[in-house]
């Protein structure tokens, strides 16, 4: 133990902590050669010879292994990043005990990454010596968010990406051209003033930047993580075809996390009470956005949630490693501070009907119950044990915290070889969750090709990195079970792409005679969701589309019933968090106008079904 103290500190990279390269921001924390210890991976140079060094923390003060023979305390001549080759050596100081080089790595902290220097010879020690984060390399291309090593992160539920640190955020913000006519704002369904908040980041005013976003979007920490920016704001960025779009989503997340992490969250001034009350059904993205907007305009807002936790799909659907529930709770708590009231365990349609809500004195009702009915394919053998809807699997793991079973009481189905049917974000979430729940082989079965997959680009890449196998142009036709009624195989056929169908994507056509069997013991069905019928038992007279969604008569979401608006997935069918929020924003504006103008008629008759 005494020996450890003599050297200048090293980094402990145990659970929860990760170190990455200050230059390229790639993870240095990996699973060591033993396959058991979390280790710090460095390249060391002795003279002309270079090799890999793995430092793993242990009770004795660091275990070292690697391809170079490391004798005693002989200090290496240089320490390099194994990814970009940049030298990690602190040129200023050397270890006081052995005179060897000190390596500098970034360590992801609770709030921000911190630079830590340590003696490579010593192995591992405790305290992190904080220093100012160095400026990342000035470059014209887009900066990436630091990510945890794929092998390591696929074993637990901690968040995959670390978010930008100060330096990266400022460097990335500096890339923004501040276009006179910013296209990015048009690409945002809630029209966040993107150039304005990026300009504030450039100046180091991170809290100001967060407040700029919050003027348009009450849930920035959530949207920064789950919006499909690559198909929205970032797709329209002027730099996209040159050096890559500005990382708008990562910047949004950075400032939201910064504001929360520094306890700088401020409650904006609220308009005087109007005396009007609005009931919101569903606490998902649409319901929360609408509640935030209307409460700030002075209306009394109560949100009813059928489940025991708030957030809707943010709570039950999107996994912890992509959207920590702590972030959801923080943003919900922000709304609570704004004055929104919440009621959980309130199943509207069963506990209260629409009539009851109006009888309670509400002046308007917003229906935002989402698309919560899982769709199955209707294939033979679908009710075998361990054929599970994505909704059920994700609800068990996320909402009921089955990954903490048996500390939490709800178990999740287990499988060694898992097939996930579908190619959307939900399918990626299922596949990556299954890896983390201990499944050995996880295969995504998708009937078109990678280019047509509706999932967010980042999710596909992450799934690939983590070891998910993809079988494209593959469609399941039958589940095969054993005598006890458990699924054992998935029969698939190979497809080819034909002419575009109604969705504009090429229609997959089965190739005759191409059927084969895939050995599986768990199948997760992630092929979409339909409108949940529970709501409708208490909503007589509410018109619905052929597909069962609520029919609306204008962009604001007015329904066939007076004083009832609807928005989000229950109107559009399964879409994204931000689209639901965009719809809610329009509805909020209309509800506010309706309530304050003292209108009594319901002018939808001339409208067209939206």
């Amino acid at each position, binding site marked *: 133990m005494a020996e450890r103290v003599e050297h200048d500190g090293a980094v402990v990279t145990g659970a929860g902590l990760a170190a990455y390269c200050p230059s390229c921001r790639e993870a240095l924390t990996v699973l060591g050669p033993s396959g058991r210890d979390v280790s710090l991976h460095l390249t060391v140079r002795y003279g002309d010879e270079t090799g890999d060094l793995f430092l793993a923390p242990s009770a004795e003060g660091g275990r070292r292994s690697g391809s170079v023979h490391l004798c005693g305390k002989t200090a290496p001549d240089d320490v390099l990043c194994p990814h970009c080759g940049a030298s990690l050596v602190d040129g200023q100081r050397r270890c006081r005990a052995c005179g060897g080089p000190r390596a500098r790595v970034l360590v992801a902290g609770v709030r921000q990454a911190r630079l830590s220097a340590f003696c490579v010879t010593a192995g591992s020690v405790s305290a992190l010596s904080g220093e100012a984060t160095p400026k990342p390399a000035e470059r014209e291309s887009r900066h990436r968010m630091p990510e945890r090593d794929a092998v390591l992160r696929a074993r637990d539920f901690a968040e995959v990406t670390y978010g930008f640190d100060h330096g990266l955020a400022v460097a990335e913000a500096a890339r923004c051209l501040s276009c006179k006519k910013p296209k990015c704002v048009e690409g945002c369904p809630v029209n966040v003033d993107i150039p304005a908040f990026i300009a504030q980041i450039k100046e180091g005013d991170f809290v100001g930047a967060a407040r700029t976003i919050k003027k348009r979007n009450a849930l920035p920490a959530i949207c920064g993580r789950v919006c499909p920016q690559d198909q929205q704001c970032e797709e329209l960025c002027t730099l996209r075809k040159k050096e890559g779009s500005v990382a708008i989503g990562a910047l949004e997340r950075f400032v939201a996390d910064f504001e929360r992490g520094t306890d700088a969250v401020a409650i904006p001034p609220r308009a005087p009470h109007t005396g009007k009350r609005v009931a919101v059904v569903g606490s998902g993205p649409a319901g929360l956005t609408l509640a935030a907007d209307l409460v700030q305009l002075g209306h009394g807002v109560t949100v009813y949630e*059928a489940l025991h936790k708030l957030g809707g799909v943010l709570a039950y659907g999107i996994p912890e490693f992509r959207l920590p529930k702590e972030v959801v709770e923080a943003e919900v708590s922000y709304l609570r501070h704004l004055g929104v009231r919440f009621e959980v365990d309130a*199943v509207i349609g069963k506990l209260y009907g629409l009539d009851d809500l109006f009888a309670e004195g509400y002046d308007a009702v917003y229906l935002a119950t989402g698309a919560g009915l899982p769709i*199955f394919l209707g294939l033979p053998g679908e009710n075998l*044990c361990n054929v599970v*809807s994505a909704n059920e699997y994700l609800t068990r793991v996320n909402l009921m915290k089955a990954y903490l*079973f*048996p500390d939490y009481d709800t*178990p999740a189905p287990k499988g060694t070889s898992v097939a996930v049917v579908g190619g959307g974000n939900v399918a990626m979430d299922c596949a990556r969750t299954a890896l983390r729940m201990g499944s050995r082989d996880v295969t995504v079965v998708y009937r078109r090709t990678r280019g047509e997959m509706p999932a967010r680009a980042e999710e596909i890449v992450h799934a690939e990195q983590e070891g998910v196998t993809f079988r494209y142009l593959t469609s399941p036709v039958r589940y095969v079970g054993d005598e006890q*009624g458990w699924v054992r195989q998935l029969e698939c056929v190979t497809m080819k792409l034909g002419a575009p169908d109604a969705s504009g994507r090429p229609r997959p056509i089965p190739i005759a005679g191409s059927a084969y069997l895939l050995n599986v013991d768990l199948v997760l069905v992630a092929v979409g969701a339909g409108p949940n019928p*529970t709501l409708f038992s208490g909503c007589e007279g509410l018109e619905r589309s052929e597909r069962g969604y609520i029919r609306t008569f204008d962009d604001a979401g007015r329904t066939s019933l007076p004083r009832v608006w609807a928005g989000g997935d229950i109107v559009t069918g399964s879409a994204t968090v931000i689209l639901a929020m965009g719809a809610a924003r329009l509805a909020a504006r209309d509800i506010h106008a309706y309530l304050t103008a003292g209108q009594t008629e319901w002018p939808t008759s001339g409208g067209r079904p939206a």
Partner: protein
Amino acid sequence: MYSIVDRQELTKRDMISLTIEAPVIARRIRPGQFVIIRINETGERVPLTVAYADAVNGTIKIIFQVVGKSTALLASLPVGEAIKDLAGPLGAVMEFENVGTVVGIGGGSGIAVLHHLLIGYKEAGNRVISIIGAREKALLILEDEMRELCDEVIPTTDDGSYGVHGVVTDALSGLVEHGERLDLAVAVGPLVMMRAVCDMTKLYDLPTIVSLNPIMIDGTGMCGGCRCTVGSETRFACVDGPHFDGHKVDFDELIRRNTTYSRDERMSLLSSVRRG
């Protein structure tokens, strides 16, 4: 929070009755509907069919048998304690028609649910007969309540310690052989019991309604864990049921599906015992 205002041990072993304060649910719930209970922050969502609702006092009564960790925990709660979450009423609202004579067949804790359903049939003007079965006399519940409600009550015990010696289907065939004209059967109890009843009533051409108890999480149609095959169609018990035409239900499939988490349930119980 939902407070427990009354607690009864209905049998010496493990049948518990809890009366819980839930005014809105008590007013809204119809016979045959269920609620979902989550006892505490780490708890499961447990679906329990309501045995009785008292709209005046704003309480609902649930009767359950201790079978695993959650029911054991629920059984351990004293009067005055509260459970964290209670959501409902869930499930489809049943129509109770006057069909003539209804025979209710209940086993185990299913007798409690049957009692609530038979209230509905009695109120609709039916003549109501009930057959209630248990392994032994000490495990038979709600006999007095049934006698008060029904025109005829036939208790059965497997060991012959009380009533008809045998199982509920023995009493049912006895009824039919004595020339009793039956128009509808309602069976609530273990799946094997309901399957046996349905096998028998098919022969008698007697329409039969059963109350299913599949694995469920949200209870609002969101997870699909409760799906079962009814007449070659997949139905969700939570929103389409839990009551179905028993002659169309694929009981074998449901019995298999209900074993999905047996190992986990044992593990959950064991780990909680170890932790005390």
